[in-house]
């Protein structure tokens, strides 16, 4: 531990101490009975517009995002900017579809998307598919938050061998697990406020200070190799990089709000109105993400990849080290500490929400559906608390013992899997037209095809479709959810005719449940 940056580390530990206190104190914030699962797991559905803004912002724009998207810009250039159209496309979806989900869940005390699907389509196996997809897609996402944490801990020079090397990560995780257990969703909601303020300060400082030191934007962009500066213009017989860029943006946008942690954030809002307002306010985070993506290009221009003092960091963390290196290079140590704390705390907020979301899913849609149909309120919330611990422990073990590239590959697959719940959940809030078994078949076909396609492409996000000599590289999540929809639409009349002579399963909801 010879090269520890003590100033940065002191600031980091101080800020970490502050949010640890906040996390535990949050149990008493807007006090509710934490033995009720909707109090522990949804904060009592009492977060107004502003808290929801911090919570969903902290939830969706994760530490990994802030490390990995600029890292992609640093390594691959313009293609990383797909994150910007992606975040432009998500908010109309949030505005239109998700207040409906909020209302129906509020009416029926649903706390997960699978609860809703169970009530809407009356099919426990379809609900189980939604549940398992949610849990499996979330696990690697939690693990990736730890990658963000690992990178900033490494950047402060904290290293060691064997068990000692992982000790800081383990400590951070024990803190996270303890306050999530005791305070539930109130903990990440209160911490998100601190974290988001730190992230905004960091991002704007980087976008102002670094260009001044590098002699202006003109010089920065002139230093970026032309091949990275723009998307490659496709040839005559392919949609090339343009197709990749747009389908990545559209597919990611369709998938985002289907993730359990997104839905947990949305359902914890106090009203549909708070969600619609946030659709106009959350782009503030998109702007920051866009600016941080530019920071990846700054790192190219600054040439941090070639500086000997950062060679060890790049060797260990790859391009993910680009942003931390830039902060170490251009800012005083104490501010680097603030930036690293922002990323580190930024890892804990979504990790907490993700583990709560996975715990809610297990408790409601597996335990209560299949093992114990009538738990007491206390039993139900107790199971959820324990499952949240197990989920986090699983993520920690995963990141300590499995090489990082596997986590990244699994997270890519997670996106392909979670989008397969779109017909049941996002279209389900509009229509009961689909046959429940047809939805399940569509989900199965989409999931199997998506997994096989991603595996055949060596776990890269796109799969090239060919039509009559014309090549369309398409984000696999998007092409397979279309396949999923085609199967569900084609099989619905068939299954209705075969199985539903006595009428469809009962829809537990009525149209008036979907609006205030």
């Amino acid at each position, binding site marked *: 531990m010879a090269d520890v940056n003590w100033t940065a580390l002191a600031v980091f530990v101080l800020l970490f101490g502050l949010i640890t206190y906040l996390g535990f104190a949050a149990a008493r914030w807007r006090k509710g009975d934490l033995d009720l699962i909707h109090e522990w797991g949804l904060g009592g559905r009492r977060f107004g517009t502003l808290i929801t803004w911090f919570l969903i912002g902290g939830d969706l724009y994760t530490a990994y995002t802030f490390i990995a998207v600029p890292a992609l810009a640093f390594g691959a250039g313009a293609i990383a900017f797909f994150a910007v159209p992606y975040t432009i496309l998500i*908010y109309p979806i949030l*505005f239109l579809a998700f207040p409906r989900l909020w209302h129906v869940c509020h009416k029926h005390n649903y706390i997960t998307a699978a609860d809703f699907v169970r009530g809407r389509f009356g099919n426990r196996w379809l609900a189980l598919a939604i549940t398992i997809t949610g849990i499996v897609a979330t696990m690697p996402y939690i693990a990736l938050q730890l990658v963000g944490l690992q990178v900033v801990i490494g950047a402060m020079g904290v290293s060691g061998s064997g068990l000692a090397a992982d000790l800081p990560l383990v400590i951070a995780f024990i803190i996270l697990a303890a306050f999530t257990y005791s305070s539930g969703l109130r903990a990440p909601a209160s911490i998100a406020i601190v974290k988001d303020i730190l992230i905004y300060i960091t991002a704007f400082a980087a976008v102002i200070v670094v260009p001044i030191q590098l002699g202006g*934007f003109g010089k920065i962009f002139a230093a970026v190799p032309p091949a990275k500066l723009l998307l490659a213009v496709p040839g005559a017989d392919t949609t090339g990089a343009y197709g990749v860029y747009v389908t990545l*943006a559209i597919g990611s946008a369709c998938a985002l709000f289907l993730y359990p942690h997104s839905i947990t954030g949305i359902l914890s809002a106090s009203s549909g109105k708070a969600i619609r307002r946030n659709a106009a306010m959350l782009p503030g985070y*998109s702007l920051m993400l866009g600016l941080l993506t530019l920071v990846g290009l700054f790192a190219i221009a600054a040439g941090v990849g070639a500086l000997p003092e950062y060679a060890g960091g790049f060797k260990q963390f790859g391009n993910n080290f680009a942003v931390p290196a830039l902060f170490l290079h251009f800012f005083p140590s104490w501010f680097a500490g603030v930036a690293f704390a922002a990323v580190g705390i930024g890892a804990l907020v979504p990790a907490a929400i993700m583990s709560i979301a996975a715990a809610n899913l297990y408790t409601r849609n597996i335990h209560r559906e299949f093992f114990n149909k009538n738990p007491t309120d206390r039993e139900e919330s107790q199971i959820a608390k324990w499952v949240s611990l197990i989920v986090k422990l699983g993520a920690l073990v995963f990141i300590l013992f499995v090489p990082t590239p596997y986590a990244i590959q699994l997270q890519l697959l997670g996106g392909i899997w979670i989008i397969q719940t779109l017909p049941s959940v996002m279209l389900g809030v509009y229509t009961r037209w689909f046959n429940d078994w047809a939805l399940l078949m569509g989900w199965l076909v989409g999931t199997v095809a998506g997994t096989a396609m991603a595996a055949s492409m060596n776990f890269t996000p796109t799969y090239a479709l060919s039509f009559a000599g014309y090549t369309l590289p398409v984000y696999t999540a998007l092409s397979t959810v279309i396949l999923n929809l085609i199967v569900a639409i084609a099989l619905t009349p068939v299954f209705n005719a075969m199985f539903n002579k006595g009428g469809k399963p009962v829809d537990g909801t009525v149209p*008036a449940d979907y609006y205030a």
Partner: protein
Amino acid sequence: MSQQSADRRGEQPKWSWWYLLFVVQLVAVVWPPFYNKIDPTFVGIPFFYWYQLLWVIIGAVLTAIVYFATEE
């Protein structure tokens, strides 16, 4: 939910033409050939980058307009 009846007022889930404003931001960013270029630059930032960042802001404004136009 006992307070539900009190909440049951305000907007109906009817179609509003204001929603078409969402299509504007969609169209603006789904066609890369239109913005995949360097010029015109803005304070040294290539068009590709500032154009898309600008649409984040325009998109937020359009969403706010839809919100105020459709909220009772």
